[in-house]
């Protein structure tokens, strides 16, 4: 059991607002990072990240002290992102998102590698995307990701491998390959 986590949770449950602020400050980067990478949209990511924290505080009494706090929060975040993506797929795409997609189709205008990779990530299957983000952004092991996504470690390894393959394929199509080839030789 992580004593720091348990102590912070106890203080939050006691209604200590300073501890609650510290709680949000401690995890906001990871939670927002996952939401932002999953949703590909800053405002949506902020909304969902806030919702994650509110839900986390509401169910903090259900947290199992034998689990580490961060994976527990990331599980909530992954679930909220999944729900949000499901809702978003049923409603018309916003103007901002349309423009992002339009930009996506003109590779000459995109030079930033980060943007290229993020756009490629947006095209991944949702569970592959979550897996890739948790592995490469949060530096989590396949076992930890398996616990968050409730999948066997072997499945996570497969998803990670496939996501990398798909990303490489997309990036290759977008003209990243020659540069890399040049570097690799």
């Amino acid at each position: 059991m992580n004593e720091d986590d348990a102590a912070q949770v106890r203080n939050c449950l006691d209604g200590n607002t300073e501890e609650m602020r510290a709680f949000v400050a401690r995890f906001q980067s990871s939670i927002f990072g996952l939401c932002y990478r999953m949703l590909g949209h800053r405002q949506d990511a902020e909304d969902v990240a806030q919702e994650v924290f509110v839900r986390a505080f509401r169910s903090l009494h259900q947290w199992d002290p034998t689990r580490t706090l961060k994976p527990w929060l990331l599980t909530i975040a992954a679930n909220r992102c999944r729900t949000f993506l499901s809702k978003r797929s049923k409603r018309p795409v916003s103007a901002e998102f349309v423009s992002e997609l339009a930009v996506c189709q003109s590779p000459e205008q995109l030079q930033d590698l980060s943007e290229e990779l993020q756009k490629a990530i947006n095209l991944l299957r949702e569970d592959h995307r979550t897996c890739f983000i948790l592995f490469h952004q949060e530096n989590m092991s396949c076992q930890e990701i398996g616990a968050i996504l409730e999948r066997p470690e072997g499945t996570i390894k497969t998803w990670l491998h496939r996501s990398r393959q798909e990303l490489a394929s997309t990036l290759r199509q977008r003209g990243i390959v020659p540069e890399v080839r040049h570097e690799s030789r």
Partner: protein
Amino acid sequence: MNLAEYQTALERMIETHNSGQRSRLENLATKSPEHQAAWEDFLIVEYTLPAWKQDLPEVDLVEAVMSQLTESPDSTLGQMRPGGESSAQTAPPRSSARWFYASMLTVAALLIFVSLKTSLDRSTQVPPQTIVVNTTVIPDSPAISAEKTTSNNKFNQLLRNAGAASWGLAQSTAGAMTEAVSLVPVTHQTLKTADTQPAESNWVDDINHEMQPLKEQISHAWNFIIHSVPEESTRI
């Protein structure tokens, strides 16, 4: 190293974040075009990852989250605290849940009692009467008598079915009630978050979870009696 072994080694290097094998795998990439493609796939992603990792916007959600929490104190902050006001707020649902399950058990018990009593009364009294009526009132019409005897046999069969179904219901419900007796002590003793909250904070959820087998038992018993008794029995 064949292609499969090469890919496995590459994946292991990625999964373990161990770049000790990197130069060796890079050298092996020239072995075949397939090896080269696998290595390039790895490089393409690795090449873009650092920029991607650094490109995460800064965000400060503290004030926004805290304002959301304070805007709805009854639904959030109140629910967080296991003691004090929150106990008072959550008391009615717990109480109503207790009443709900108690009334469910009472209804189940009454249903068993009525079913058993009805089937016993009918199996001991009705068949002799119907047989007597048939033999005395229409003695001179063999065709009608035979038809009525068939009808009586059918009726007796229905009663036997109803009796068997009632017995099945009684057994199922008795089993379910036996399980129900052990519900509350078990849940109180096995709370996982005992050190972060008082023992009863998760009572309703635990009870709902534990009541699932009981619901299934009652449903099973009910389905049993529905399917055991033919449609004709509704005329009884």
